[in-house]
């Protein structure tokens, strides 16, 4: 369990944090996730990668935690707290503006768009794996990411940034 925790807890934490937007809640979440893994290890049949299994459990628990909270919708304060940490003073000036705006707009996406962007780009999950984690058909996975990207482009355009697409 220590090795499993050691290898996966950071990614599980980050995935959970992007969903619940509260570090304390995200930390509680990973304890619950790995405790569930400890309890249900016998049910893991190896049909998917361990990380896929962990992310699916994390998502389920994050949504449960969100349901328990009243402030499910984007909280500006929480969003700012997250986006501020993404500022990288070492990024070149021109790149910095674009990067900062892009990351800021990413935090402003809806939870379902955020999770699909993270699963594909950061957690490197295939169409099939995302479908398994989110519990939606594979075609829906593809269209959802497309429209998440389209929404991101709209947010950037509203912020005055044109990237050549759409």
């Amino acid at each position, binding site marked *: *369990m*220590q*090795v*499993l*925790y*050691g*290898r*996966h*807890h*950071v*990614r599980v*934490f*980050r995935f959970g*944090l*992007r969903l619940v937007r509260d*570090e304390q809640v*995200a*930390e*509680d979440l*990973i*304890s619950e996730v*790995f*405790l569930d*893994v*400890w*309890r249900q*290890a*016998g049910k*893991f049949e*190896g049909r998917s*990668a361990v*990380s896929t299994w962990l992310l699916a459990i994390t998502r389920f628990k994050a949504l449960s935690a969100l349901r328990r909270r009243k402030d499910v919708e984007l909280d500006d304060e929480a969003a700012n707290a*997250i986006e501020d*940490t*993404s500022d*990288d003073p*070492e990024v*070149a000036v021109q790149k910095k503006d*674009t*990067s900062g705006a*892009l*990351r800021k707009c*990413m935090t402003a996406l809806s939870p379902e768009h955020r999770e699909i*962007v*993270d699963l*594909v*780009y*950061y957690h*490197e999950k*295939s*169409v099939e794996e995302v479908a398994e984690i989110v519990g939606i058909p594979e075609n829906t996975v*593809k*269209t959802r*990411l*497309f429209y998440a*990207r389209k929404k991101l482009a709209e947010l950037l355009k509203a912020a005055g940034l044109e*990237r*050549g*697409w*759409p």
Partner: protein
Amino acid sequence: MMATSKKILEQEPSEIEMLLPWHAAGTLNARDARRVDEALARDPELARQYAVIREEYAETIHLNESLGAPSARAMAKLFAAIDGEPVRKPSLSVSLSARTSEFFARLSPRTLAWSASLGAVALLLQAGVIGAVLMKNQTGSFQTASLSLNEPSAAPITRDLSSSVAPTRALVRSAPEARIADITALLDNYQASIVDGAKGGMFRLQFGNKAMSKDEVAGLLARLQREKIVSLAVATP
């Protein structure tokens, strides 16, 4: 003939267009990756959209890496809870061989080929380093083995892209048509070594042993991006 990408946003996106993010992340199977490559080669509009996607891909990694890690409290809480659980035999290791087979079966041929090729190069490099260290440090003492979470095997799987710390490192994804000889030549030309492998054919390379200025790093990445066998190169700590 209709272009692969759709210029009118109200139209439904094409199948190829929807696969672009997975192509950027290197998680498509060989057949789909080839279809996307062919479409990118003949459709400039699609290629432009792909460039935007690669930017999104890099920034998503930056954003997630900036989120930090949980405190030790989470781990303490977990293991206290486990200590409070009834005694059980964790069976996570059941059918390890079956899951190992499953894991390799799930990799796309491109990823598998790349992993194998670069894995071989990494092994050779490691063998050289280990050999050199052993030759240099033969002291006759010994150490016992013990589990430590500080060991690389237990290190968290993350995808650092945030701060730049010496020496210079980059996450590099190679083009599908690259051969092992090309990779070896690339490593030689850039005095680079593979320090970490990851899913999706993405590997972390280290360039020399000294820190570079931001301009040097930018120049290095630009040169790498122009390499025929490199499909993506981004800075990483």
